[in-house]
Structure formats: structure tokens, C-alpha cells
């Protein structure tokens, strides 16, 4: 229990540190949100109008006052409203986050479904044609940036063959088929890196386990090969794979920025980019805070799962 409490307390402290750093950093970056909003399209706003907007948005208040108001809001679960259109930050996140999580979930599912079986098969047939081909493919896939993969998919499947839409989004409730179709390409693009990582990690981990005594014993007992693989090899090999998966799922939250942009998938990344460009302080702080909290939560869950699988970790 102490282990769990320690981990949760550490995660909460990290959330506060992240919130503070992001708040200070975004305010230190040059750029006046009021001036930027009124300069959209390259036009020049009148300084008196800019001053009026700054006053209305509360940007003239001392930074310490703004920080205290931000922390008070945070304690109430209120992340403020957008400087651009007064829309509640929490509502924006509630609208966008499920789409980003859906994309990550779809990409991760694809990566697990392809990477783990392929890695296992390659390890069990080490040095064979599949192992060599899959290892080379994994290295190649890892080397290609995600935006190149995305652009190639659009060029081939949308523009040339015209069998898939180039990008966009339709809510699932309005048109489930179109929704899933639009999800396909971004999910493939986001899955490619994680698939290669899971393939390599599974292959390496299975190779470590496959020569161990308990596996040899299981085989000697005459267990069915599939049972040996599933119960005695994979179960022991998946702990490091799970750790890597947890870490990479967190990283996928960042990786979605490019994928969402390339495929026009309206997840959390678009408002984050737009908010950074517009110096929309509450929106930037709120989104990064939520993403960081998610990242920390995923890592916390991974730690707890590993501790459940391996009791030595709990006492370390």
C-alpha cells in the first residue's frame, strides 16, 4: 500500500510542477494574445483596440495574480476559458481528448496485433526468412518519419487510387462507416513506429525466455507447443514489453500532433498548436496539463501493473 501511495503522491507533485513550468514558460514566450488575435490575416490592429482587449482578457494583471487565479481554478477543476473565443478549456479538452485517445487506442491495438505475434514468430524462428525480413522491415519503418508515411498514404490511397479519403473527421454517431474509414489512415500512420518497437522488444524478450529451464521443462513434459508459447514463454516475456508499451503510449500522445495535423484529425493536437500560435495561455496550459497527467497516469498504471506481476519491484 505504501508503494501505491508513494507513487500517487509523486505523480501529483509532478502534475503541479508541470503546471507551474508550463504556465511560466508560455508567459515568457514573446507575443501578445490580444494583438495576435486582432492581427489575424496580417492586418494591423489599432493599439487602443489591442489595449481594450488586453483589459477585457485580464492580461494586464500581474503575472503572480494570474498564477494564483490559475491555481485556484485548478483546485476547483476549472482550467479557465480560451482567450480567443471565451470557450471553456475543459469543454474543449472534453471534446477533443476522446478523439486523440481513440486514435491512440486504434494505433496501439494495431501495433499490438501486428507487433507481438510477429515478434514472437520471428524469435521462435530465429534466423529464418521471416525473422530476417521482419527485422529489416522494422528497422526501415522506424527510420521513416511519421509525416512521410502519412503523406505517402494520402498520395497513394487518396490522391492516386482514390480509395480512401485524404483526411478529416465525422462523428461516429453521425456516420459510423465514414468515421472508421477516416480513422484508418491516421491509425496506420501512428501504429507504424509502435509496431516496430513492439516487434523488436517481443522478439528480444522471447529469445531471452525461450532458452530458460522452465520452458525446456514444459516442452519435456510434452505440453502442446502453443501452450508452451502462450503460458510459459509469452507470459514471462511480456513484462518488459508491457513497460515499453506503457512508455510509448505516453509518447504517442506527443506523436499524435503530426498525425492529427497531416490527416486533419481534430484531436487535442490541433487546438494545442493553434493555442501556442495564438498565445492562448489558458488553452496551452490546460491541454499540456491534461496530457502530462495522462502520461503520468499511464506510467503510474504501468508501474503498478509491473509491481503486480513482479513482487520484487514493490520492495525495491
Amino acid at each position, binding site marked *: 500500500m505504501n508503494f501505491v501511495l508513494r507513487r500517487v503522491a509523486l505523480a501529483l507533485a509532478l502534475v503541479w510542477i508541470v503546471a507551474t513550468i508550463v504556465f511560466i514558460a508560455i508567459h515568457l514566450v514573446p*507575443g*501578445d494574445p490580444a494583438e495576435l488575435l486582432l492581427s489575424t490575416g*496580417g492586418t494591423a490592429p489599432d493599439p487602443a483596440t489591442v489595449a481594450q*482587449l488586453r483589459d477585457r482578457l485580464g492580461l494586464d494583471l500581474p503575472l503572480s495574480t494570474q498564477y494564483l487565479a490559475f491555481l485556484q481554478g485548478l483546485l476547483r477543476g476549472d482550467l479557465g476559458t480560451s482567450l*480567443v473565443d471565451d470557450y471553456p478549456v475543459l469543454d474543449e479538452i472534453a471534446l477533443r481528448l476522446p478523439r486523440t485517445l481513440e486514435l491512440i487506442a486504434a494505433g496501439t491495438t494495431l501495433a499490438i496485433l501486428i507487433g507481438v505475434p510477429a515478434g514472437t514468430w520471428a524469435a521462435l524462428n530465429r534466423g529464418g526468412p521471416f525473422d530476417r525480413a521482419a527485422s529489416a522491415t522494422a528497422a526501415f519503418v522506424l527510420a521513416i518519419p511519421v509525416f512521410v508515411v502519412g503523406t505517402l498514404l494520402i498520395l497513394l490511397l487518396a490522391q492516386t487510387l*482514390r*480509395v480512401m*479519403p485524404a483526411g478529416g473527421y465525422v462523428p461516429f454517431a453521425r*456516420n459510423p462507416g*465514414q468515421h472508421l474509414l477516416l480513422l484508418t489512415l491516421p491509425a496506420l500512420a501512428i501504429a507504424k513506429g509502435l509496431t516496430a518497437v513492439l516487434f523488436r522488444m517481443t522478439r528480444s524478450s522471447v529469445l531471452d525466455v525461450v532458452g530458460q529451464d522452465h520452458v525446456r521443462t514444459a516442452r519435456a513434459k510434452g505440453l502442446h507447443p502453443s501452450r508452451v508459447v502462450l503460458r510459459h514463454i509469452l507470459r514471462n516475456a511480456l513484462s518488459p514489453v508491457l513497460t515499453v508499451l506503457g512508455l510509448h503510449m505516453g509518447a504517442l500522445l506527443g506523436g499524435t500532433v503530426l498525425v492529427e495535423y497531416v490527416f486533419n484529425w481534430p484531436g487535442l493536437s490541433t487546438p494545442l498548436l493553434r493555442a501556442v500560435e495564438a498565445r492562448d495561455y489558458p488553452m496551452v496550459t490546460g491541454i499540456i496539463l491534461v496530457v502530462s497527467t495522462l502520461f503520468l497516469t499511464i506510467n503510474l498504471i504501468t508501474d503498478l501493473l509491473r509491481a503486480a506481476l513482479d513482487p520484487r519491484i514493490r520492495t525495491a
Partner: protein
Amino acid sequence: MVPTRRALLGGLATVPLLHHSARAQARPGFVRYGLSAFPPNLSPWDNTGASAGTVKMLLNRSLVAWNAKGELTGELATSWGLDDQGAWVFKLRQDVVFHNGEKLTAKDVAWTIEQVAGEKSTAHMRVQFQQLARVETPDPYTVRLVPKEKLATLPAWFANYNMHICWAGSDPRTPIGCGPYRLVRQERGTSIELAASPNYFKPGLPKLKGILFTAYPDENLRIAALRAGDLDMIEYVPWQAMASVETDARLRLDEVQGAAFMDILFNGTRPPFNNPLVRRAVAHAVKREDIVKVAFFGRGRPLEGVPIAPGTPYFDEQLSRGWAYDPARAKALLAEAGYASGIQAKMLATAQFGMHKDSAEIVQQYLAAIGIQVELQLPDWSTRVSLGTRGQYDLAVHGVAADSNDPDGLSVVMDTSLSNTHSRSFSLAAPRTSAAFAAGRAEFDLAKRVEIYKDLQRAALEEVPLVGLAWRSQGFGMDKRITGFKNLPGQLSTSSGNQLEYTDFA
């Protein structure tokens, strides 16, 4: 599993189904329009960019608008003119109803101007409308605008896409307009759906049943979506893709020249660019054809003078070449200014937009050739704006469109007597140019205005409040079956959204 011939054929057979599914959202009578940015808000008076302007022009109407020829035409106003006391009098249509069913009267116009010019207002046209002494409504369909000083350009203010007439009973945060379309729904950050207004005052318009605007901020994806058939029409076709749209049998490009221009701005508070001789040296140092080729893929033309729109009475062929490429003259001007040994300077642009960065890099090379060594600063756009407004640069490369094709529209970029902003030279003295702008605004006679603006060009060629670099074109890409849309000429291109009421799609 071993692949079989049957499995392969089965798989191939599904391809047409996928194709159908991918394009399943097309609907007759509706246009799917790719915006370059999702409107931050739809306030009819705040400036939130040209993409937002396109949507706002369909939800709202103003007293006048630009027509396809680039001329002012009546919208809510049937006529307008000056009375003998120098006030502008607008006569209103009597058949206009707002989206809530209320009839338009002069009080709505007065209320709108009151909102725009109010002390707490953040409207784009606030400063302009604060030049009015008073607004009078002698009868329900007449508005009389009395300016503090003579104002020849006042009617054109109402054609700006940030100046719409709204119902006087509206909540000022959500004003009600009387445009050809109504807002059906908005998928925040993603799409906006409009439907034709059943009580629009122009018979037979709008032609479309509805328009679905979807934001595609990435220009490459926007053009890919048009080619893939996901969209029927897009704005801001990237210059590098214009040729491929022209050659695509399904598509049409509506391109106008001179929709906007690139220029160099100066910091007038310190040497060496507070010296007009040095600024003239810069003006003669750059070969503009290279900017047109590199930054705009040939989709533009050199700008070697004041950015007066060609085709207007104010354009003068000879004056338009006043800053022609002449490196020998540039070196001589530098020597005359006392900088024969060269200059070190910092030039501000942004890496966020390719045209700004490419233009700046070419300018850097040409300035080096006459002895001006420039260090480029290429921050993101937001920082660029901030540094520009505070004058933290020696020279800056900028890109902008004037408010209209009338020379007075250039005052926002050239009249340095106005307050400092990122899109004007910083605290730079160009008194003759500024005086000419003031004179042009107060003159009603066209022949006299032409002479005033030719004088303005002569003054600007010597005072150099900015250096023109290149006109750039702007294009809309669309399915060939779309009819009735016209990209407005010159710097009115960003106002072309009002043409969507005439647009049809069989």
C-alpha cells in the same frame, strides 16, 4: 493462409466500394468548401482573418459590397451619396429581414455603428467609425452619417468583411445578421454547416441549398482533399499546386494577380535605415523576379514601386518602376549616405510561412551584393508580430493585402503617421506620403484624387516608407461543375466569399 486467385479477385472487387464510401458525403446542391483556418469566432465586427470573413459574409450583409468587377454595389443600401453639408446619406432597402424575422430599419444601422465605434469595442473598423461626428436616422429607411472631417472613402468601409449590419435588438456578443445563409451547426475546430436562408432579400438567391465548411490548415492536405474528391472547393490554392489544378480535367483554378504583396519595412528610429538614401539603396538592390520564381513558383509579378493596383486610374506605368533593380545605383546611394564601406543589420521575418522566409533569404543575398550584410531572424509568426510592433529589428520582410484596391487602402501599410504596428515601418518619418493620404481621403473628385495619389507615389519613392518586392496571386480551386463563383480582382480577393451566394453546384 496461402493466397488464392479467388481471394485476390475478391479483394480487388472491394476497391470500388471503398471508393464510393470515401466520397459518400457529396450531396447535390451543397458545396463542401475547404477553409485554410477554422474561424476563431464569427463575430461580425472583430477581425479573425479572411477564412472567418468568408463565413461571416454569408451569415451577414452590409450596406454595400464589392461586386465581381471590384466595384461597390448596393446590398442593404439602394443608393448612397453626399448631401450639401458633406454627410453621407444611405437609403435602405425596405424588404430586408434578419434571420429572426425582424425587418431592417435605419435604427439597426445606427446600433451597429454604435457597437463598432464604442469605447469598449474591439471591432476591426473601430478607428474608422470613430471619425464620425454623429449618425442620424431621419426616417426608418434613411441613414445620415456625419463625419468629423471630409471623408471620400467612407462607403467602402461598409464593404469590409468585418463590418456587417446586425439587428438592433441582438445581444452584442451574438449579433443577428441577414445574410444569404444561416448557421445550422458548428463542429468546433472542424466544420461549420450553413443552410440557405428562406427569407433572404434577393430573389432566387442563394443558389446553393447549403455549404459545409471544413478547416484544412495544412495546404498540402487541402489540395489533396480537393483532388481526392473529399472537397468541392478550396481557398488559398498553394502556388506550387496551381499548375496541377489547371491541368486536372475535373478541376478549375480561379486565380487573380496582385491579391497581396510582399514588402520590406524599416526601423526609422536609428541609423542607418532612418536615412531615406539607405532605404532607396535597399529598394534598388533587389531583383524581384527571383522572389516571384522561388517564393511564388512564378505565380506573381515583381513590385518595383508603390503597391498601387494595376488597372485602376491611380496606376502609373513609369512610377510603378521607380525602384527598378539597379545595383550600381544602390551602391551609389549607399556611398552618398556615407555607408560606402557597408552596413551590418538584422532582418526580421518568420519561418512559419514559406513565402516570408524565401523572400527574406533572397533579399539577404541581394543586399549582401551591395555591401549590406544582413543577419536573418526567423522566429514563429507570433514572435514576429511582437518584435515588429515593438520595433525590435532593423529591416523586416512582411506580406500583406491592402483593405481595398483604392489607394487609401494602402494607408494601413504605408501611412507611418499612424501608430506603430508589425505591418508598418516603425516610427519612420514619411511626412509627404502621410499628407498625401490625408488629402486623398478628403477629395471627392476622381481626377483630383488621381493626381494626389500620383504625387503620393512620387513622395513615397523618395521617402521609402516601405519597399515593394512582389505581387502574389491568390487562387480558388474547385470542381468544374461549380458555377457562378468569381475570385474578386486584386486585393479584394479575400472578399470573394460574398460570391458564394451566386455559386451553384449541379
